[in-house]
């Protein structure tokens, strides 16, 4: 195997948490509120169903082909040529999604904190740092996640507690005023978040305790759902109906925090925490791309691919959109379908095809016997 490191299923869950929650946590309330209005906190519940579905499919695939990632599985199921084509298109989408994440990061940091710094510097620096982590391999990413995720979680909890005085629970009433449909519509951007669980396929082969893997996969979906419910709920409680009008509701909420006349303007701290989460997210996608492309090319080591892929990532994150308007439009329209078709569609088709193959083979054996 190319990756020699091993991780525990707890570490896997800790990697997946920022992969799914980070970056999205800033604007997901606004995007969801556009469709779901006051029911935006119900949407993560629907969205998490997609999460459970993806986890289930990935585990079934893993059961059929243990010790293989999705890239190797496609080749096994569809044969060499078709498998290679599907594999590279899947990897291309991984690259594309990661460059979207990086662009979001660059856009946010550029807009809010480093207004005069060229976006290339902001993007280049994070990609370089992520490159170091990817070079270290899955083990290093897992250890970083294990160190950082508790800090990130604790800080979010702290922010939540500090915001409690500003919350107005009555904002959520009436619940489901327009029926169930708005909250389901709001679940579409939520589902785009939960689809990231497809990355599990690149971690399952390297687990030390596979038996607990399914348990931790489900737990991480559940905790993600809980986090999203809390985030959407708190921004609803604070902003009420205007949630959908704000670009980054969570950040504006944190600007509200003022304690003892001394603790105020915590958004720099929030940015620090947010950058840490984003770092883990970008590194994991980056790692998956590097590992996938090396498996696709049947290389013996993935390290030579790290820095070339980094350049590709920087270039793609610039190319992904010419300006902010186009980028936001892309994010709220095309990207849902893109990620859904590749992150849910391909694994589902793979599983169905694999099961069908298995059945046919069994039938044949049965006839022979």
């Amino acid at each position, binding site marked *: 195997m190319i990756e020699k490191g091993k991780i*525990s299923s*707890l*570490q896997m869950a800790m990697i997946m948490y920022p992969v799914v929650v980070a970056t999205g946590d800033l604007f997901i309330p606004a995007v969801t509120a556009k469709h779901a209005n006051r029911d935006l906190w119900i949407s993560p519940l629907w969205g998490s169903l997609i999460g459970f579905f993806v986890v289930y499919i990935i585990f079934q695939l893993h059961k059929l082909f243990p010790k293989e990632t999705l890239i190797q599985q496609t080749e096994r199921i569809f044969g060499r040529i078709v498998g290679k084509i599907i594999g590279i298109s899947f990897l291309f989408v991984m690259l594309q999604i990661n460059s979207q994440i990086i662009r979001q990061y660059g856009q946010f*940091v550029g807009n809010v*904190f*480093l207004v005069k*710094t060229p976006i290339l*510097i*902001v993007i280049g*620096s*994070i990609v370089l*740092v992520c490159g*170091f*982590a990817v070079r*270290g391999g899955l*083990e*290093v990413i*897992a*250890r*970083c996640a*294990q*160190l*950082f995720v508790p800090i990130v979680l604790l800080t979010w909890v702290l922010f939540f507690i500090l915001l409690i005085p500003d919350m107005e629970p009555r904002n959520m009433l009436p619940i489901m005023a327009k029926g169930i449909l708005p909250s389901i519509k709001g679940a579409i951007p939520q589902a785009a978040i939960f689809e990231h669980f497809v990355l599990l396929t690149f971690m399952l082969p390297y687990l030390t305790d596979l038996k607990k893997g399914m348990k931790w996969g489900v737990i991480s979906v559940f905790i993600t759902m809980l986090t999203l419910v809390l985030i959407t709920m708190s921004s609803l409680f604070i902003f009420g109906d205007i949630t959908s009008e704000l670009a980054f509701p969570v950040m504006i909420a944190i600007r509200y925090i003022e304690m003892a*006349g*001394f603790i*105020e*303007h915590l958004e*720099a701290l929030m*940015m*620090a925490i947010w*950058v*840490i989460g984003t*770092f883990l997210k970008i590194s994991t996608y980056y790692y998956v791309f590097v590992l996938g492309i090396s498996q696709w090319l049947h290389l013996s080591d993935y390290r030579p691919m790290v820095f070339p892929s980094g350049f590709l990532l920087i270039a793609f994150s610039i190319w992904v959109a010419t300006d902010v308007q186009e980028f936001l439009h892309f994010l709220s329209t095309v990207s849902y379908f893109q990620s859904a078709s590749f992150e849910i569609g391909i694994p589902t088709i793979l599983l169905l095809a694999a099961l069908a193959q298995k059945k046919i083979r069994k039938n044949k054996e049965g006839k022979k016997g």
Partner: protein
Amino acid sequence: MDVFKKLVRKGYVSSQTKISADKLQDITGMQIPLSLELNENLQTLQTIYENCLYVVFHNFLISGKTNALLIFIEGLSDKDMINEYVLTPLSQGTSEVQESTPIVQNKISLSNHKEVKTFEEVIEQVSMGNPVLLIDKEMNGIALNLSKWEHRSIQEPVAEPIIKGPREGFTETLSVNMSLLLRKIKSPLFKMNSVKLGRYTQTQIVVAYIEGLADPNLVQEVMNRLERIDMDGVLESGYIEEMIEDNPFSPFPQLLTTERPDAVAAQLLEGRVSILVDGTPIVIVVPTTLFSLLQSPEDYYQRFMISSMIRWLRYLFVVIALVAPSVYVAILTYHQEMVPTTLLLSISKSREDIPFPAFFEALLMEITFEALREAGIRLPKQVGSAVSIVGALVIGQAATAAGLVSSPMVMVVALTGIASFMIPHYSTGVSFRLLRFPLMILAGILGLLGVVLGMITIVIHLCTLRSFGVPYMTPLAPMKTRDMKDVLVRAPWWMLKTRPHLTGAGNKYRQSPGEIPGSSKGDESE
């Protein structure tokens, strides 16, 4: 032409060193057995020790009949003891027959002697300070353990002082250091292996471990890495430290070095391996983790609540030592809105006359501080106090009065300085102090984002590091919940039931269960 000359000279020099190395090889690799004829032996040894005026060849007659030769190095061997216990009993009396080795050994009233068979062994023993006695018509010589040289007495460790706990520290003499450890661990399972390193210095290195606690593979790995070393000399444990590390390009020490016997004994009891080097009081312990490097032996001697609190304080100040100046620079340059208004007003008031941007101010002060610290170590004690007075004036008052540096910056730098000295192991503190400079540069370029990215890079590096196969960040990453009791807090001794996961796996429990004390109900005297 010059270049050509230089090349020639270089070639000449290198060929010469090669020759001398060959000669060294010849002498040390001489497995030639000693001859029966004493004169032959004498001649060979005299050619080997040509121009070595420190070697004494003493010819004498045993019991007035048998020729004998005593070889020793003046200053390394105890002359009085040689006269009293070797020469006097041997020269006494007369005997008609040729004396043989067993009889001679009986006559010498010494507890420790050893037979030597080859020239190599003779040379080895003589250089260690043990006189060698060669007798005519005898195949084997006798090495007498009479080495004695001037050495420092046991003193309190200078670099690692503690308040509650043993006061003794290692010295430069290997045998003394070994005895200090043996005084603490009195089990025959306490093993010591020896290696000789250094082509010229032939430094003795002892690998100590407790059988049954230390992983045999680890001991083997330590021995392998030590035996791989081939260098001219090993004068301090720092020489081999850099030769056996897992990652040679890291600012962090991957081995624990200490001059406290109690610290080494505690580490041995956790299943680690220690390396003692002759000629230095600094002992190496492997494997280590970042958190062991942030602990002091005193943590285990104080009450557990106090130790836990001190550990938290230490972790807090490690972070401060690393990021305080860079965060200050970042906030003052890019994120002024983070500072509460009144504080911002007072800071900006004091910065009004300062001609430098915050970044240069911080860099200036930090470099000055580092220079003062280094000068404080190097300067003779008599001048030291003068430097500290001048330093305090330069850093503190004069610089602020002259309007070169603002007083908040002086506070930040002073705090950072104090924070870095809270780290109990000097070499670890130096690593953190070094890393503060790149972080400051990042803060000057990208503000808090730069600091965060720098910290992430440091954490990535720490997560990549291993010390003899043990991940550097254990037990936080990879997480070992059971080992947290000795990292996040210092649990009371009756709760420290298990050894650290990655070093003491072979022998898990270090206490019997149910050690928690309490007032005994049966003894109530009411």
